[in-house]
């Protein structure tokens, strides 16, 4: 606990140090030239481009622990969040009342297959959950979700993933990702959701 507080204070001080010169430059702005705008039809020379102010990035030297780019979380839930954030494992999305894969869905599954075949992913199995939006009926959607999950599984198998590594389950419309009742929520809820399992 104490260690963390110390660490936080140190990094805060560092950040302040770094930011100070940046703040100073901000406090002495160049006064922009006032250009009369009475005659709008007169073509004007655009202002020269202004620099965009950004924060100074933390340099690796300042951080006590220097994490390498690819430390894979050991916790399975953290790992699933991580591969999703990195885009290594991606869900396939479907059109309304469809279980076929369009180009975007195939691209998502191809990316996922690449990671699953790589050194980091090869040790994991996959659960593919089929999901539907709320606009259908529950019982038919459970069957539709099964078809979706299996269309994703079949495609992953054609990409070289061993079928024995992939399990499927259909949640129909029982577990929506988005609770809204609009097109954007519905499109988020029609998917094959890829979950890494040990």
């Amino acid at each position, binding site marked *: 606990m104490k260690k963390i507080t110390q660490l936080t204070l140190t990094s805060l001080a560092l950040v302040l140090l770094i930011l100070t010169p940046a703040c100073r430059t901000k406090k002495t702005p160049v006064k922009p030239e006032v250009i009369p705008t009475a005659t709008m039809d007169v073509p004007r020379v655009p202002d020269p481009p202004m620099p965009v102010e950004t924060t100074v990035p933390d340099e690796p030297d300042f951080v006590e622990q220097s994490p390498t780019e690819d430390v894979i979380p050991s916790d399975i839930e953290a790992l699933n969040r991580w591969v999703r954030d990195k885009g290594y494992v991606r869900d396939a999305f479907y059109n309304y009342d469809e279980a076929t894969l369009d180009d975007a869905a195939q691209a998502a599954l191809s990316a996922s297959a690449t990671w699953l075949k790589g050194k980091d992913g090869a040790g994991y199995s996959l659960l593919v959950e089929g999901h539907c939006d709320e606009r259908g*009926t529950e019982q038919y959607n*459970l*069957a539709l979700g*099964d*078809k979706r999950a299996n269309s994703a599984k079949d495609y992953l198998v054609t990409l070289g993933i061993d079928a024995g590594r992939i*399990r499927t389950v*259909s*949640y129909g419309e029982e577990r929506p990702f988005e609770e809204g009742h609009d097109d954007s929520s519905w499109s988020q809820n029609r998917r094959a959701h890829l979950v890494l399992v040990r």
Partner: protein
Amino acid sequence: MKKLILLSIAVLSIGAAAHAQTDITSTMTAGQAAQIVRIAVPFPELKPPAAPAPALVDTGKVREGFFGPLTRDIAYSGIFALAALPPSVPVTPELMKRVEAQFYLQLNVWTEGAEYVVEARLVDQTGAAQLKKRYRGPEAALARTAHTLANELMRTFNNRPGVFLSQIAFASNRSGNWEVWLMDWDGANQRQITRHGALSILPSWSPDNERMVYTSFARGTSDMYIINRRGGGRMRINSGLALNTSATFSPVSNDIAFVGSVRGNPDIYLIKDDGSNLRRLTTTNSIESTPEWSPNGRQIAFTSGRTGTPQIYVMDAEGTNERRISFEGNWNDDAVFSPDGEKVAYTSRVNGRFQIRIANLITNESSIIAGEGSNEQPTWSPDGQWIAFQSDRKGRKWQVFRMRADGSDLLQLTFDGENKEPDWSKKPE
């Protein structure tokens, strides 16, 4: 046989005035009114019939637990009308004539120790008792006493019992997970049956009202389970297939129809209730789902996406003789046969919303029972007079409602959490 002395009846309790007594016949045509029996049902005397002084009985408990359910059953029976009684006036033959009551239900309720005793006499205009019943039980049994008595009244006039003791199974998420629950036909006594702590849905009754089959994701995938109505005897049926959804007991054998899937091809299958003798009924590459038996067990209705949209089909129980029966709307599902086998109710999309549609299998005509919101998963009462269904008309949360098969007398049955997928028990009692 003790003759009834109507004059000895004490003044009506104040409780009677608290109950609105529905005058059903006023909305009936002359032809229908001829079949309606008008009956005077004053609030019970809270003492034994011949006792000199009333014992101490909780008026509120008798009203909420017994008299309320009883008068609601009678009002919704379809064959009785409650006579409009003036409060606090003894029911005499003269009063019966004045309020046009053909019968008078004399009720006495008292307590003996921890038990309630209910005595009922159905008296005609001559004072002769047509029905005499006495029930005894704890306070918790008062509602079932009321339903049992209402069923006896139905049997007396209709030669068959009412549906007042029938049960409705449903799925509720009020415990934090979707689990299977049961309730009485009027929404009372809602109680949790399954405790998987996991998504457990789509309950369906056995024909003897003793067991239910449903789908649970307790093992991380969807499996079929059977459980008895009191929550015991749970067993998993291993079909060896994926999905295992929409399971439903045959009305005439130990077969269960369900949706199974092999490699993403959902079809209708049969399996025995001990998990043996798996048989495949449909063989297309399209989605088949939602099987439901005809009352005689000879046919199975189901949903198929073979034409591109989900539509209702009927086939023989052997999987032969498939024919489409829904022709309107681009999404139809949840077909259920009426108890007489002449009609099928199903969920049908109309103008972007789901509505309950009832199709007559003899005339091939169908009509919508229009309601607000989305209305899905109909289930018939065992006498075919009522349909329970789920609707999101109250704030986009699923709740279970009950209505007559013509859409009248709508009543919301659930309020706690979200509730859906009602399945009405198959036998009236």
